[in-house]
């Protein structure tokens, strides 16, 4: 039995199955947009009742896009696509590489676009003139001498017949990329307080610890706001990679949302932040240029060792419920006169004048930066698939395989020929008709040829 007659093969090669799978995928995909995904089991019991929740768990509805049956549908879809391609591609390939000079001459008389001319002259000489016409209109011609005369052939975009297969292949690329990503990659998150480093991240969902193989340190985190004081404008972390195995550690990089840092295939995305209790403080004595930088907790009196200076943050005003500090109240004493109390904006520098000296006091709240940590070795395969899909769609939709033959036949009466100009296009017939008309025009305007 030929593979093409096999019932199972025919089933998997059919477009009917493709339509069915596409529509089933479309309708079942709706479920996951109506029923919230990836919530804990209690959520579903509360929202839908015990029995419905049990039913959902059975069908993996709370995580339906990774469920056995949804993956199964995608698998069916892929098998369909592969079998369908194997089934049809050989024939299409034949069309692409076909030697059209061997086309059955009878068939030329039945082409959808035809025009017949007569001309006196020798077939080879006429072929030369016709080749000139073809070249002028952008057709590169091949020719073959037949016993009856000369056949000229020219085609455009034969390979465009493969466009559809590029689209189908691109879908498989995307699937392969997605599978590679889910098997060899991970999605994780981690919070790193300013000044700290971590060499692990926590897998999203499972909270499993994932070793990174190097450390990443957060040197600085900053959130800036628009003039309205509420809308965040930019979240920025300065990250430093610490990797003892690397010859040359990469330079620190500022990351913002939409501009991550990638190192050894692992990418760190700015995703959130958490205000911490405490402040980064820098004090500079403007006279002696002595400088003291440290992290201090809220509400404690901190001495500057070796001097009489002591200071602390004794009050704070928060911007939002998250606990971002807007303003803070500082207590400062350098042993001269009275202690100095003042409010300052977070993340600014204030000048302090005591009876004997001036200081610059800089304070900013300590933050932890929230990073998404992702490794996805499949993403480039997915992107290659996407590019291939766009190119393939363009080719499949807008290019067509156009063919033109000119058959110059010697008539019985010597030195006289019949010329058949004919052509066909696999798509976009209207555009081809115009092109064909333009070519035929060359014949009409040349006095050598007379309309039949």
């Amino acid at each position: 039995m030929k593979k093409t007659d096999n019932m199972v093969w025919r089933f998997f090669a059919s477009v009917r199955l493709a339509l069915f799978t596409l529509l089933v995928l479309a309708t079942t995909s709706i479920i996951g947009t109506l029923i919230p995904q990836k919530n804990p089991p209690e959520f579903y019991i509360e929202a839908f009742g015990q029995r419905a929740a049990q039913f959902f768990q059975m069908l993996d509805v709370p995580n339906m896009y990774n469920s056995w049956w949804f993956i199964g549908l995608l698998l069916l879809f892929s098998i369909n696509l592969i079998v369908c391609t194997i089934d049809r591609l050989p024939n299409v390939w034949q069309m692409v590489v076909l030697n059209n000079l061997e086309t059955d001459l009878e068939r030329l008389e039945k082409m959808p676009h035809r025009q017949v001319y007569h001309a006196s002259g020798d077939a080879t000489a006429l072929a030369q003139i016709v080749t000139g016409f073809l070249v002028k209109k952008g057709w590169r011609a091949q020719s073959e001498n037949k016993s009856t005369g000369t056949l000229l052939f020219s085609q455009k975009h034969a390979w465009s017949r493969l466009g559809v297969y590029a689209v189908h292949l691109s879908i498989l690329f995307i699937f392969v990329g997605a599978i590679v990503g889910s098997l060899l990659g991970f999605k994780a998150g981690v919070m790193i307080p300013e000044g700290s480093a971590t060499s692990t991240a926590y897998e999203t969902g499972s909270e499993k610890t994932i070793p990174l193989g190097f450390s990443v340190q957060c040197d600085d985190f900053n959130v800036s706001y628009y003039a309205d004081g509420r809308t965040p404008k930019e979240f920025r972390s300065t990250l430093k990679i610490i990797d003892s195995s690397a010859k040359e550690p990469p330079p620190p990089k500022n990351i913002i949302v939409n501009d991550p840092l990638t190192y050894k295939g692992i990418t760190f995305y700015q995703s959130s932040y958490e205000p911490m209790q405490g402040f980064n403080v820098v004090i500079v004595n403007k006279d002696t240029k002595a400088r003291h930088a440290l992290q201090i907790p809220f509400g404690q009196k901190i001495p500057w060792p070796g001097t009489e200076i002591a200071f602390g943050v004794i009050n704070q005003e928060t911007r939002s419920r998250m606990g971002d500090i807007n303003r803070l109240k500082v207590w400062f004493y350098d042993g001269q006169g009275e202690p100095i109390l003042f409010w300052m904006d977070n993340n600014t520098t204030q000048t302090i004048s005591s009876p004997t000296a001036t200081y610059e006091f800089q304070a900013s709240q300590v933050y932890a930066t929230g990073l998404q940590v992702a490794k996805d070795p499949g993403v480039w395969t997915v992107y290659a698939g996407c590019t291939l899909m766009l190119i393939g769609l363009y080719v499949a939709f807008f290019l067509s395989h156009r063919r033109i033959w000119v058959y110059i036949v010697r008539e019985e009466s010597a030195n006289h020929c019949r010329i058949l100009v004919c052509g066909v296009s696999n798509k976009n017939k209207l555009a081809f008709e115009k092109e064909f008309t333009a070519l035929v025009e060359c014949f009409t305007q040349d006095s050598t040829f007379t309309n039949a």
Partner: protein
Amino acid sequence: MNSSQLMGITTFAYLFAAILYIGILVFQTKKLGFFATLMTIGAFLANTAGIGMRWYESHQMGIGYAPLSNMYESLVFFAWSIAIVYLGMEVRYKNRILGAFSMPFAALAMILAGLKNPDIKPLIPALQSNWLIAHVITCFIGYAAFAVASGMGIMYLLKDRKRQTDQTSSLLDSLPDLKTSDDIIHKTLVFGFLWLTAGIITGAVWANSAWGTYWSWDPKETWSLITWFVYAATLHARFTKGWGGRRIAWLAIIGFVSVIFTYYGVNYLLSGLHSYGGGG
């Protein structure tokens, strides 16, 4: 002149253009055609100027960004896309009747935009990306083509019903014949499908650069995929099973319902990453 005045002018101009096109269809006054086209071009220019002005105003406020980032701005851009897709078709098919089935969508989009809050608000960090601009532009050109295709679908069904009941009505006689309409619907769907595909892809690239996942099955993403499946099925039904006529006309309408849900419904009925587009 500020951008909201321009948007107001745009709304009325689209509405007027739509009425003119419908007038041509109903009263068989071909002479109005020129004015309808002129009105559409005028509306389109006002729309373009309005978008440009809003861009300029956002820069004046010190928060400059391409005005494509909330429901109001996207509706305005949707109207713009419908107008340009339609004008392209009018030139290509040399047929003004299509306007009666296209321009009402542009007017409707502007009217809906008028119901939204047009305040220029600064962009949150996730939206500050060139991929967002590419994403919105590609998606909306696709959506606009689908809107026009569904309009043609309605036109086809009207004309076809007449053929079945065999009434004679000069009104429907002036519509393009069924074979031409069918061809236009198909070509418009193909055009839209290419742009929708590009829209989904640019969205995925954006998500990957912002969050490290190109696909997270959030409701809006999922609905765009559902829409994509519907149109993919439509193209296959036509290309390989020879479906045409009424069936494709219906699928063009069903597909557009799915587009509307992806674009509008998801924001209000479901929750997800994209819900910033809602309310607004």
